[in-house]
């Protein structure tokens, strides 16, 4: 992520497209602006405290704790720990990335880190409650029961695939 040139180029391109849209379809251009604006406000509202919490986690939780709980030899216990940590997650998936990165840096295995991300994405407790309310207990329950083994499978498979060659690439800074 050191190279900012690609996203920066894309941003310029988007600004140009957006500007053109203002001339051709001002209504759509305004819609794009208000939607993006809303998401921007949402990001501003949640990113700073999340990053501060991740920073504190980084500074205070010792490496050996994470290594013991979610490291290479942690086995089933490590996977369960990763799932529990993920379900306790709050906020959207991109908010979980910095914490997952920090877990990896502190010695969590790639499998468990992936399980953590997937659990955060799909079976956070606040989200499950919402799902039960709107889609019903049976729907939410069956989806949860099917998702759990799939998450573990994704973690194991991803680790196999990425470690076949250039395993260090996954740990890029």
């Amino acid at each position, binding site marked *: 992520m050191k190279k900012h040139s690609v996203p920066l180029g894309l941003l310029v391109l988007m600004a140009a497209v957006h500007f053109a849209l203002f001339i051709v379809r001002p209504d759509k251009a305004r819609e*794009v602006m208000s939607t993006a604006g809303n*998401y921007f406000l949402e990001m501003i509202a949640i990113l700073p405290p999340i990053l501060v919490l991740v920073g504190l986690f980084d500074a205070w939780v010792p490496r050996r704790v994470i290594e013991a709980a979610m490291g290479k030899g942690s086995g089933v216990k490590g996977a369960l720990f990763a799932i529990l940590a993920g379900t306790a997650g709050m906020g959207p998936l991109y908010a979980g990335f910095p914490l997952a990165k920090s877990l990896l840096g502190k010695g969590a295995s790639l499998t468990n880190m992936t399980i953590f991300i997937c659990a955060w994405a799909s079976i956070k407790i606040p989200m499950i409650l919402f799902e039960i309310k709107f889609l019903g207990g049976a729907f939410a329950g069956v989806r949860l029961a099917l*998702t759990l083994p799939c998450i573990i499978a994704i973690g194991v498979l991803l680790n196999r695939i990425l470690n076949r060659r250039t395993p260090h690439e996954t740990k890029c800074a």
Partner: protein
Amino acid sequence: MLFTAILWGAAAAGLVFSFLKNKDKSQRALGAARKMLESMAWLVLLTIWSIGFILAFLPPEAVSRAIGPGSGIKGVAVAAFFGSIVLIQAFIAFPLAGSFLRQGAGVEAIAAFVTTLVMVGILTAPLEAGFFGKRFALWRNVLSFIFAIVIALAMGVVLG
């Protein structure tokens, strides 16, 4: 929102506690937070701008028509596709999916939509790649997509 208030409260309480216990460590924590923000900023901006474009040109009615009542097995494929590209918060997506379900949409299609929506993120993939590398982002999303389809079809069998 309550969730946001809890986050800010927890971060503030954590910082105060941290500074009282160890000033150096706390400053390091803040430095790490700032560095993360700097490395994410451009991609975050790019992501939300893309969301603005996509939602403006892909109205909910289009999604509704594609995976709504009577869309059948083709609905599963379309639902998984939409679920992978759009980025909607759960508090909008679940009520929407619930209304489709009550209107007679297939359980498979709704399950495919909800599961890909939460697990697969094409829009957030560049951000994910920034953190964990391109291959990780690619394969995590590909595997999640495949398993989301499996989950959706299995749900159709169990609940359909």
